[in-house]
């Protein structure tokens, strides 16, 4: 309604930043290919080394960065709106940790080594089991039950992950598990993209349909219901949409924290507070953040394989502290 111009400028600006970062992600890398050459190689049919690098290494990495980031930003914004809690993020309802557990079990049992898609499929299965458990535990109870069920599922998944580490057959398996859990987009293939895309898109559709319902929820569950919002359907869509998209993103990129928490927070004041306006902004913001972070990890410590999840946590945690500092007065 009001400040519409400013809002569309913000969305347009974020879209431009996302596109620029996407192109940079394609163009920048250790292989040192010239900008024009790299982009034309994307569309080339010959099987030269540059074409191979672009189409098999950098393109899937950039696409996964875009999708993972948008997923984390979008689902974070939806969950904060659903739970009416600025601390909500995909990790809170146990999706990320359960997907991680699935992946860890795949590594632990050797499934991931025997069958290349074993790991992402196991991670997806973990996410979907988590969402079922949260739904059943929470029943038709309120917001608090969802959070409590999520915390319970999340703690259990973390405990099982620790157990797998504890019992890991050899140090290499433990190392592999540790590294996987740090989250990374390196060495992903188009197969990963094809595997994750349907789940991520389905999740996005479910989450994006919730804007109006989340707006009404600003006034509390009773007021929203009296305005015609089907609370059970809204919650089911939010949780299942998060499970599909975040589960698939975690399955291919590992657990990447703080993006789902920080991005909606950062953008909320700029969008006028309404969840429906925050959703697209947060998706674009999340995509930008992951793409930027993934470009950074290639240059901050080249050759040391700095993990994406480590970088987002290093940037995210101090931001979170600043947030606590800033909102201290409101909480008193």
């Amino acid at each position, binding site marked *: *309604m*009001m*400040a519409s111009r400013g809002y569309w400028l913000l969305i347009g600006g974020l879209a431009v930043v996302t596109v620029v970062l996407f192109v940079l992600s394609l163009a920048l890398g250790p292989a040192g290919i010239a900008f024009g050459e790299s982009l034309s190689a994307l569309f080339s049919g010959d099987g030269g080394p540059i074409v191979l690098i672009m189409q098999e290494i950098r393109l899937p990495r950039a696409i996964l960065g875009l999708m993972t980031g948008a997923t984390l930003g979008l689902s974070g914004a939806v969950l904060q709106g659903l739970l*009416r809690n600025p601390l909500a993020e995909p990790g809170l309802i146990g999706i990320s940790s359960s997907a991680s557990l699935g992946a860890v079990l795949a590594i632990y049992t050797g499934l991931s080594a025997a069958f290349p898609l074993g790991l992402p499929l196991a991670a997806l299965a973990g996410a979907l089991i988590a969402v079922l458990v949260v739904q059943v535990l929470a029943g038709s109870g309120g917001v608090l039950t969802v959070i409590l069920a999520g915390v319970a599922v999340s703690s259990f998944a973390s405990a099982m992950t620790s157990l797998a580490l504890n019992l890991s057959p050899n140090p290499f398996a433990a190392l592999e598990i540790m590294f996987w859990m740090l989250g990374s987009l390196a060495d992903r293939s188009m197969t990963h993209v094809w595997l994750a895309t349907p789940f991520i898109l389905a999740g996005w559709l479910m989450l994006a*349909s919730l*804007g*109006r319902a989340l*707006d*009404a*929820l*600003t*006034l*509390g569950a*009773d*007021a929203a*219901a*009296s*305005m*015609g*919002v*089907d609370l059970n359907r809204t919650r089911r869509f939010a949780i299942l949409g998060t499970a599909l998209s975040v589960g698939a993103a975690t399955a291919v990129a590992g657990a990447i924290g703080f993006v789902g928490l920080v991005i909606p927070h950062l953008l*909320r*004041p700029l969008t*006028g*507070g*309404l*969840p429906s306006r925050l959703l697209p902004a947060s998706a674009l913001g999340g995509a930008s953040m992951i793409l930027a972070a993934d470009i950074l990890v290639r240059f901050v410590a080249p050759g040391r394989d700095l993990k994406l999840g480590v970088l987002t946590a290093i940037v995210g945690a101090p931001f979170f502290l600043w947030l606590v500092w800033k909102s201290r007065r409101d909480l008193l």
Partner: protein
Amino acid sequence: MSTSLLDIAGLNVDLGGASVVRDLSLNVKAGEFVGLIGPNGAGKSTLLRAIAGLVPIGGTVSVAGDRLEGLKAAERALRLAYVPQEHEIAWPVPVETLVALGRTPHRSNFALLSTRDRQVVADAMARMDVARFAKRPATALSGGEKARVLIARALAQDTPLILADEPAAGLDPAYQIALMRVFRDLAGEGRGVIASMHDLGLSARWCTRLVLLNGGKIVADGSPEEVLTPETLHAIYGVSGFFGVADGGLVVQPLDLVERR
């Protein structure tokens, strides 16, 4: 002016194993401003929530002739608006945007606000005198201002029936009276208003009809003069009261605690 807006027959509500509303029947017509009064725990809020379809019920509730159970949430939202007792506003949304949320049931999922939507929102804000801070974040307002904004949100829903749970709580006398006038005007336009209230003086002067609840049952129903008597005050609230007439209206002022008969 005598269309039946709300028909309740044999309503029972159980919450957490306790029977909160018992075999209650009530009929509200267009043009009535019903004050729902009664001591704490009498079942006023639960009755309002039951009418709004927010709690599982036994018995039947019909709004404008349609059974509540047969209606989808969105269809129900076109027939009645509800103002909860708690002033919950989760995000720093500008007042204007918040009031426009009342248009939710009138809009399809991705539609923008129509000219009519904007007009109804502007009218609602003008009625509740909140247009002055239309651009301010609703979370930054005082308690009384928030209360008025949330009522404006319900008015923007533009429904034949309006339910409000303690709408006058937290308002200064001028705004309390202004709110009562708004509800009277809405009733005069052929809508129905049901508001739970604790201020007996206010309800005596402004409601066209009072319904006194106690223990989940209606114990008195009628004009303020019929319902608010020294006997009911004594028996139901356990207080004595001053009763008078000023400016052609009933004046009721509770005075002191007395032994309940």
